[in-house]
């Protein structure tokens, strides 16, 4: 039987994805980590056994807290009339790429930021949070068709944004020195 309060393993597994998701909703990495802290503690108090069936609820908590924080931040910004204070970690990279993935990671991050927020949210939850469309629909209060549509539009937009990566990928066979694929080694399954 797992010892009670053995939360660290669960947290280490989930924290990067949770922070990535929270960053889609708030302004900086520091804010995102605040959100994740509150959400995880709240979630762990409720489900101290760390059951993976309850992970969608953890993402839902992140969402609720992030949206609350954003509302209060907007009020604060309005009050303070945009101070010049630089938010800590605002520009910290969202990904932790392998050396050969650095360029790809930077492009993907920029491409993600260019997406509308609702599409970005679905892409993040689906690809890095491993949630199903059903789970995303339940936590966002949207229909499953809406969620699937957002995902489809987001993928289409990313296809366009990453078009030049595509060219690099295909150029790889002619010039094997360039390996832009973030996953290694490239397989015949991954390449047409």
């Amino acid at each position, binding site marked *: 039987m797992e010892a009670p309060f053995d939360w660290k393993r669960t947290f280490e597994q989930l924290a990067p994805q949770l922070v990535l998701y929270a960053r889609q909703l708030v302004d900086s990495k520091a804010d995102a980590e605040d959100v994740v802290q509150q959400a995880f503690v709240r979630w762990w108090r409720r489900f101290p056994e760390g059951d993976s069936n309850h992970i969608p609820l953890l993402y839902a908590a992140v969402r609720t807290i992030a949206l609350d924080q954003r509302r209060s931040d907007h009020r604060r910004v309005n009050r303070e009339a945009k101070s010049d204070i630089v938010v800590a970690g605002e520009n910290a990279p969202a990904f932790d790429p392998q050396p050969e993935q650095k360029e790809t990671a930077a492009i993907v991050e920029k491409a993600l930021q260019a997406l509308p927020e609702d599409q970005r949210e679905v892409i993040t939850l689906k690809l890095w949070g491993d949630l199903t469309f059903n789970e995303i629909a339940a936590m966002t209060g949207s229909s499953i068709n809406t969620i699937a549509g957002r995902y489809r539009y987001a993928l289409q937009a990313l296809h366009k944004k990453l078009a030049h990566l595509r060219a690099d990928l295909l150029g790889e066979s002619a010039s094997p020195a360039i390996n832009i*694929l973030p996953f290694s080694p490239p397989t015949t399954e991954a390449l047409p």
Partner: protein
Amino acid sequence: MNNNLNDSQLESLLRGLAPAAASPSLTQRVDEELKLDMSWLSTSQRKPHRTPKWITSAGWAAMGAAAAIAVMSYLPTQQSNMQGFATVAPAVRPVSTIREWDDAQDNGIHHGRSLVAEKRALVVSRELGTWVDPRYSAQMAVDYPSQQAYLQNVSFIK
């Protein structure tokens, strides 16, 4: 040759990027917050939530005692009414009541609707009461269990 990445290849490409790790201070902050919970809960960890064995038997005893009091209060009234005397004040009266705490379970700190931190505790106690009926020089001990939930506001020192 098809120059397009298909959707699954694009998904693989994106999934292949690992999200940046959370900062070590985040883990530390979560650790501190959960440790606070552990300190509150340590009492109930040592003493798991259970219903004390005596509660069932004491409950029956209390019900029996209550029934006896009711009967004793009722009978003299009937007799006096039958004899045509005026009804007197209830003869059975409590002499002393003692409350003993049997168990206190700390249910941790929660945030209420107003987001104020509250410590919740459940106190299991029993009341020992002594009742007498001077008409018959009768005395009886009443022993019944009770459970009460307590809420206490908590403030944190930063």
